[in-house]
């Protein structure tokens, strides 16, 4: 009986275009949209080498030395091109350099647009001018101090990495999206309960008349749903990783385990709503979409700051929102090197799953109905 019900449920669900759209195509489309919208975000925080034209009108060994230091090494800040004034102007107007530096008694910077590269050039020259003035003043007043002077910049803060990978803040959106996709699996749960309950569908009535154990049929059928949901989630993950190039870090094994648990939570959530809420299928579908979208919104899917806002202003919401627990589990895996926060989220999610499943069982175990 297991094989019979399982195989036919697979057939039915795979041909249900609306179901496949909401549970697979929609999250993929949303991921593509996110990628288009946020694709440049992570690269905006990094700087490339800035091409600059340098016109030497007088010898300035100190500046040449500084510029050389800034233009060598693993990630040089500048790529200087020593040219004549006319060549410099040509390079600038062609947009081949961010600016031109004329080295004379004083430094002159010429740019023809504003931007991060131009700002860096200005800051660099300001800093250089400030330092040389300071050194000149010290040399004039206390020349003996110059020998002991340490020009190494002093920093009062220190970077302490919490992850071994490169931090990408846009991942938050994708985590919330994956959580949303897992919870869209609730549509499967809704469908399975409708199929088993005589008071919810005529097919349910027909199944109740057959010599089949109702709960067993429900479990077999739900397993088919879960199989499809997991398949869809794997397609989504593959799309995110291989097509959109989202880097989930080194914990991919645990991420997949989390997807498995999240999908189960989503499926049981749909069963829970279908079994407990009175109303027709459209109303329940609307309710599932609404709850999932609100849950995703509160976990930062549409607006990343929302996650922080909820955590600081309404911390209870982070605990009672299963979508957030799931999204935060992914977040914890990526941003923290310990598993405390991850395990806390997963435990919360499993508790929700058990509550959803037991409540569903409590309703569907009823063998007769008061009305049909």
């Amino acid at each position, binding site marked *: 009986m297991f094989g019979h019900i399982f195989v036919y449920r697979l057939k039915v669900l795979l041909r249900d275009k609306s179901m496949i759209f909401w549970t697979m195509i929609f999250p993929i489309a949303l991921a593509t949209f996110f990628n288009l919208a946020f694709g440049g975000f992570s690269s905006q925080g990094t700087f490339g080498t800035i091409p600059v034209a340098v016109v030497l009108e007088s010898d300035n060994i100190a500046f040449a030395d500084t510029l050389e230091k800034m233009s060598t090494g693993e990630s040089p800040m500048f790529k200087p091109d020593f040219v004549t004034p006319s060549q410099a102007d040509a390079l600038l107007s062609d947009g081949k350099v961010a600016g031109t530096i004329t080295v004379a008694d004083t430094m002159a910077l010429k740019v023809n647009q504003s931007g991060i590269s131009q700002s860096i050039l200005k800051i660099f020259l300001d800093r250089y001018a400030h330092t040389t003035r300071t050194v000149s003043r010290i040399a004039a007043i206390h020349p003996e101090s110059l020998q002991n002077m340490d020009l190494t910049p002093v920093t009062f803060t220190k970077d302490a990495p919490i992850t071994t990978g490169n931090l990408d803040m846009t991942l938050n959106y994708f985590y919330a999206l994956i959580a949303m996709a897992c919870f869209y699996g609730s549509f499967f749960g809704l469908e399975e309960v409708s199929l088993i309950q005589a008071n919810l569908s005529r097919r349910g009535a027909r199944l109740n*008349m057959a010599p*089949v154990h109702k709960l067993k049929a429900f479990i077999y059928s739900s397993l088919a749903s879960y199989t499809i949901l997991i398949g869809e989630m794997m397609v989504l993950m593959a799309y995110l990783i291989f097509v959109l190039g989202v880097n989930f870090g080194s914990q991919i094994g645990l991420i997949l385990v989390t997807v498995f648990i999240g999908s189960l939570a989503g499926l049981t959530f749909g069963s829970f709503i279908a079994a407990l809420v009175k109303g027709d299928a459209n109303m329940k579908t609307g309710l599932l979409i609404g709850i999932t979208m609100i849950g995703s919104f509160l976990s930062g899917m549409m607006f990343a700051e929302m996650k922080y806002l909820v955590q600081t202003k309404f911390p209870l919401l982070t605990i009672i929102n299963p979508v957030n627990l799931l999204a935060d589990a992914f977040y914890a895996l990526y941003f923290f090197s310990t598993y405390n926060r991850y395990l806390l989220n997963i435990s919360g999610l499993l508790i929700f799953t058990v509550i959803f499943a037991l409540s569903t069982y409590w309703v569907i175990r009823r063998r*007769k109905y008061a009305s049909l």
Partner: protein
Amino acid sequence: MIVKVDNLVKRYGNLVALDHLNLQVNAGEIFGLLGPNGSGKTTAINCILSLLKYDKGDIHVFDKPMSPEAYDIKKDIGVVMQDVAVFNELTVHDNIDYFCGLYIPDKKERKKLVDEAIEFVGLSDYRKFYPKKLSGGLLRRLNIACGIAHKPKLIILDEPTVAVDPQSRNKILEGIVALNKQGATVIYTSHYMEEVEQICSRIMILDKGKTIAQGTKDELKNMISLGEKITVEVFDITETQLKEIEALPHITSVIYDGKLVEIRSTKSKNNLEKVLEYIKTEKISFGKIYSELPTLNDVFLEITGKELRD
């Protein structure tokens, strides 16, 4: 006894849907449950199938108490509900195979039964069609095939011909008779008296959850005083003539709607002859004239005072 229902009471709040219903269905018969919408037919069926909770009463099927876990009973029951209950994502063949598979685990045996069911309902040309491509009549036939493919001993059909074209309706009714001839006992519910009259060997008439009459169609018709209904198409008739017709022996009522005169009489010989004689004597010009025996609607009308299709 295939089905035995004793003192069944089902309430929906203050509404009594079934009021001490007693029902027996014998092996080999086509038992008709006739009644207007809301009379309790479907409620009775759902109680018999253990889908609905009921307040009081006992239900036995195949001489065993019926319950939701009575799988040994359920395996021999086939049900065709009023609403079509199939999967739009499965073909005609797969739908029948799926539902048949809930009763028959053996694939080889099932294949034979599914093929026979498809043949039986005349859907051989539509095996690979999806339900959305089928007409209403064909869809009903698919619904029936899904309910009877496992060759049950008891088949329950709850208004299977609602919203079906006449051709498909006849096909369905012929099929039910054929199933009965093959050995199945049938419970058939309908509010179409003609259908029930046509195929049922015994009939129970329900109204407001109560049994108002039961028996064979002849037994039911003998319960009422109406013996004959004569209808005459007249072109000109006076009030006096209508009163004189009403005064003829055994005539109980005369109704004239401006075109047709409907004359009702008690059971007696020569009623039509006497009416014809009067018309000839009075030289009343007439068109059509015909006589009808009482229908189940007349039975219902006489007992309840309202039309079956009210």
